[in-house]
């Protein structure tokens, strides 16, 4: 068990890619989250998974409870705006009657899951029924309208035409169906970030059973941290049954060094923000959520 101040606790860290061609077609990187949920569902580890599906508008996510491989595949890819995943946490156990819930989400949503397990305020039937929580790396998120500003106003593309978006190599990348590739420097997108993200002290979903994201691994691959007993059990079974190809993280570029660097950047910056809130007004502080 490694315990890192920025990367959290983990037992294993590898670079991995799904072996499922259909999942990889539309996956953001290595298709880890999708493949894990499909595997867990097919093996009966979970009865259903809360994933980010399609909302009413282009690129708007809406959380839904997927109970089949087809449904889970609908949630492939990163949306870069907010999907309130946890809103379905109790719904999944109470209305859908799931005994073993899978959930995917970003860092703050993993924190929410764990708080709901230890301090289940009006979260009856939730604590004992989280069977697998897969966390995603997350630097920050955008409100829907922010993402619209970035894509339509700054990049000049219609949201309807966008095939894929990603943040990497210091840029916001927009790929369209007809082959346009637009990049924006992140200094353009920073001001559109969701303010609530600026007090977040987690970059690589330290509280997931397994957490994953592109950073640290080559294109088309993902970095995977296995963190809990539950995570370890699912991950080792999935790898053993050939769901993933893996490489030791030490052998890939840019590797853990970059993950640590970005985690440190995010967390140190946000610690400073939390600190700065104490002297925000004239002898008046903004509220400290961690006090």
């Amino acid at each position, binding site marked *: *068990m490694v315990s890192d101040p920025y990367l*959290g*606790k983990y037992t294993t860290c590898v670079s991995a890619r799904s072996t499922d061609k259909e999942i990889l077609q539309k996956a953001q990187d290595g298709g880890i989250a999708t493949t894990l949920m499909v595997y867990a569902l097919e093996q009966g580890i979970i009865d259903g998974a809360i994933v980010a599906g399609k909302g009413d508008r282009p690129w*708007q996510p809406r*959380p839904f409870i997927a109970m089949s491989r087809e449904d889970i595949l609908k949630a492939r890819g990163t949306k870069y*705006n*907010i*999907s*309130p*995943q*946890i*809103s*379905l*946490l*109790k*719904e999944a156990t109470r209305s859908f009657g799931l005994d073993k819930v899978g959930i995917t*989400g970003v860092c*703050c*949503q993993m*924190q*929410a899951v*764990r*708080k*709901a*397990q*230890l*301090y*289940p*305020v*009006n*979260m*009856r*039937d*939730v*604590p*004992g029924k989280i069977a697998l929580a897969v966390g995603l790396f997350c630097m920050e*998120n955008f*409100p*829907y*309208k922010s993402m619209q500003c970035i894509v339509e106003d700054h990049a000049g593309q219609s949201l309807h035409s966008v095939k894929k978006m990603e943040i990497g190599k210091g840029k916001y990348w927009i790929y369209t169906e007809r082959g346009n590739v637009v990049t924006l420097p992140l200094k353009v997108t920073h001001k559109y970030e*969701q*303010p*609530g*993200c*600026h*007090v*977040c*002290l987690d970059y690589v979903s*330290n*509280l997931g059973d397994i957490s994953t994201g592109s950073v640290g691994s080559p294109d088309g691959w993902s970095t995977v941290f296995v963190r*809990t*007993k539950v995570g370890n059990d699912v991950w080792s079974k999935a790898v053993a049954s050939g769901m993933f190809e893996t490489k030791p993280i030490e052998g890939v570029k840019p590797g853990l060094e970059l993950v640590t660097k970005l985690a440190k950047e995010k967390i140190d910056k946000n610690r400073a923000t939390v600190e700065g809130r104490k002297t925000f007004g004239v002898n008046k502080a*903004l*509220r400290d*959520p*961690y*006090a």
Partner: protein
Amino acid sequence: MGLLNSIKKTIGGEAKPAGVATEKKVEAKKEAKPVANKIKLGHVHLSGCTGCLVSVADNYLGLIKILDDYADLVYCLTLADVRHIPEMDVALVEGSVCIQDHESVEEIKETRKKSKVVVALGSCASYGNITRFARGGQHNQPQHESFLPIGNLIDVDVYIPGCPPSPELIRNVAVMAYLLLQGNADQKALAGKYLKPLMALAKRGTTACFCDLMNDVINQGLCMGCGTCAASCPVRAITHEFGKPQGQRDLCIKCGSCYGACPRSFFNFDVIPEFEGISEIIAGALK
């Protein structure tokens, strides 16, 4: 983790032969010699619907285990044949206080006097909840119209918000209260850390509403649209528009669940990241 492991050892969280053996011995001797260091637990029923007590009971075998090994139920109008409030270590108070009913007023004062720890069990005791909407006029005491959360009459130590509060949270608080009162130094430290945010809620005030999310989370620039509030709302008054909570305030029953559940109301980094170990400790204590 060192701390968590040592705690597990002392209350038998990890499966280990020694722990099992002691448990069996206790089992065998139970009738002849009750477990010595049990705490005294009481349930005080004021103006509530008994939903909170049902939630206590919904721990099923967990409750039986708590009553076998950790706590004696010394007062509970529904389940124990005791007429007057006795000395208690932990009093779980359900319901708000009708200030026109002098017996209720006396009862809550006496509860405070005779209890080491007063827990507001559920949202009526904590925040008034649905009883805030009472206007009196009910047969056969139509003058009973003013209901206050217990924190308006006495000092309260711990809040367990929820309508009804979830059985799991009641269970966690019961185990932690036991560790706080009867545990070794490590266990006391853990229980203190665990209970701290629930004690802070008790200090924070006696009113609650969806507005708390607006005032203390959204307006403070802390909301990140995770969706927890919507899941915790017992009347489904909260939805998310463009990833942010919208409350139908006419539906809100003022239970305070959304604020208590929100990861940005409180999030203690010395407890929640240890979720795996602490869940094992609690499960181990109730095995």
